[in-house]
């Protein structure tokens, strides 16, 4: 039997869909008994959401004022304290999980498997290496706690409708004061979230300015899409960092990915290879993006994007 502890990700109000995806990954392990752990200042609302995920057996809440912001140095000793008695510890492969889980693993003296993309057995998994140019099958020691992050683009979100028990725990763990939260700057938007959107409109360096990116936002709003960007576009300051798609940005799996003026560097392609349909519009017929695109159009994006927006209007 596998006792799996999943570190839930949330902002205090809403449980991040990465948690639902970790549950789907965990249910692939034979005999999985799943607990979701939530740390926060007040996790009542998100605990109710976690308890409703099908496949979750139990939700553990650890509420204390120091947990108001997800600092890895503060969270790690608490997660490590809860993890004893479990066979697996999963976190999402998001900036939250990637920051936290290795710190927990090291505290427990065990290795970590990053970016699980497929479960082949209780201790056998597949994960991408070399920006997804190779897929490694790896086997971990069944005698040790298995710590892993789950590549969220590889798993569908587990459905809701369950009703797990919710338990509150008080941990006698000393917390460090050497790490302090100062503030956040987030691009608040009404658009769908890039990591979970069904449609994504994305732009590259060819957009040539932050102002020109507005034509992509107009198209995205017309079709209810999230907006993404290549590293080149983010480096040039045309789009904020949270929009970056690729090996070092976000790995996404939308139903359709519309790439405008993106040449298709390997590092970018690794972020979109799970998209069901890739559409590429580029002036350069030799652009590598056309090698992976399901539908390609060799044309100037500055003509294509406004025309598409117009054709889809009304």
């Amino acid at each position, binding site marked *: 039997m596998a006792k799996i502890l999943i570190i839930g990700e949330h902002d205090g109000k809403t449980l991040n869909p990465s948690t639902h995806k970790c549950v789907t990954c965990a249910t692939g392990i034979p005999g999985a008994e799943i607990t979701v752990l939530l740390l926060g200042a007040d996790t009542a609302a998100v605990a109710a959401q976690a308890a409703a995920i099908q496949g979750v057996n139990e939700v553990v809440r650890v509420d204390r004022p120091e947990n108001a912001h997800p600092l890895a140095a503060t969270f790690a000793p608490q997660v490590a304290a809860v993890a004893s008695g479990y066979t697996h510890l999963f976190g999402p492969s998001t900036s939250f999980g990637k*920051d936290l889980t290795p710190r927990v693993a090291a505290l427990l003296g065990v290795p*970590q498997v990053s970016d699980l993309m497929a479960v082949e057995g209780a201790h056998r998994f597949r994960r991408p290496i070399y920006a997804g140019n190779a*897929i490694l099958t790896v086997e971990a020691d069944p005698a040790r706690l298995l710590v892993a992050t789950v590549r969220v683009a590889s798993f569908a979100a587990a459905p809701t409708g369950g009703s797990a028990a919710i338990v509150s725990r008080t941990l006698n763990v000393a917390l460090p004061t050497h790490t302090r939260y100062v503030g956040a700057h987030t691009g608040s938007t009404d658009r769908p979230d890039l990591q979970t959107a069904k449609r994504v409109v994305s732009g590259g360096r060819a957009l040539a300015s932050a102002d020109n990116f507005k034509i992509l936002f107009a198209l995205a709003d017309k079709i209810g899409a999230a907006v993404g960007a290549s590293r080149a576009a983010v480096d040039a300051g045309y789009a904020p960092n949270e929009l970056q798609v690729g090996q070092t940005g976000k790995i996404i799996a939308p139903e359709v990915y519309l790439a405008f003026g993106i040449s298709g560097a390997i590092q970018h392609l690794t972020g979109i290879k799970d998209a069901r349909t890739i559409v590429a519009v580029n002036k350069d017929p030799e652009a590598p993006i056309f090698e992976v695109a399901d539908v390609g159009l060799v044309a100037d994006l500055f003509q294509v994007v406004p025309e598409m927006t117009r054709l889809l209007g009304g």
Partner: protein
Amino acid sequence: MKKIMVCIKRVVDYNVRVRVKPDETGVMLEGVKMSVNPFDEIALEEALRIKERGTNAEVVAVSIGVADTQQQLRTALAMGADRAILVQTEQPVEPLTAAQTLLAVAKKESPDLILLGKQAIDDDANQTAQMLAALWDRPQATYVSKLAIDGAKATATREVDAGLETIEIDLPAVISVDLRLNEPRYVKLPDIMKAKKKPLDVIGLDSLGVAASTWLKPVKTAAPPQRQKGILVKDVAELVDVLKKKGLL
């Protein structure tokens, strides 16, 4: 700020298109160009800028790997590191082992700051900085795109999924750097000559009391599934038509 330790990994060069071996035991590395992990180059550049801002901190580049890793440490010395340490081993080094090794070096060197890349572009593990900070029992700031040092404190801006997050940490600390922190300098020829005279110590992994454990057994390395080549459309009207027929718009 007296000393900054920068961790360097030798990896397949960023521009090499990596191919899987036909027998699926790994990727083809023979004759392939090897370089400093690009993220570690950014870490080194940041250390040099902190030094040049007047702290005059000593910059120590540390790597773990095969004997040829000296090439990458010479590059680090040419960029401006003051000295280098190679912890030599012929075994593959997993992130936990790397963190244990770097901890052993940090205990000897007592740096005020350890800088390294957020991930290596070979295994893409994204673990070593966090593990090292945990073992050292010191703060970590990962995915840092802006860093300000003020006495015994640092303020770090981190690139997170929602945007940017700022944290304040006490030094000593471990910082993992992201792409936009800086643009590394180019190495000039006279610097390469100078680097040959800088100290590069080679020590054995076992001399640090660390065993190169294989915690995770690689079973096989396969090529990723290839996408089918798609169709080209002639204009926007046809593009919209195709996408509507697929039920995507």
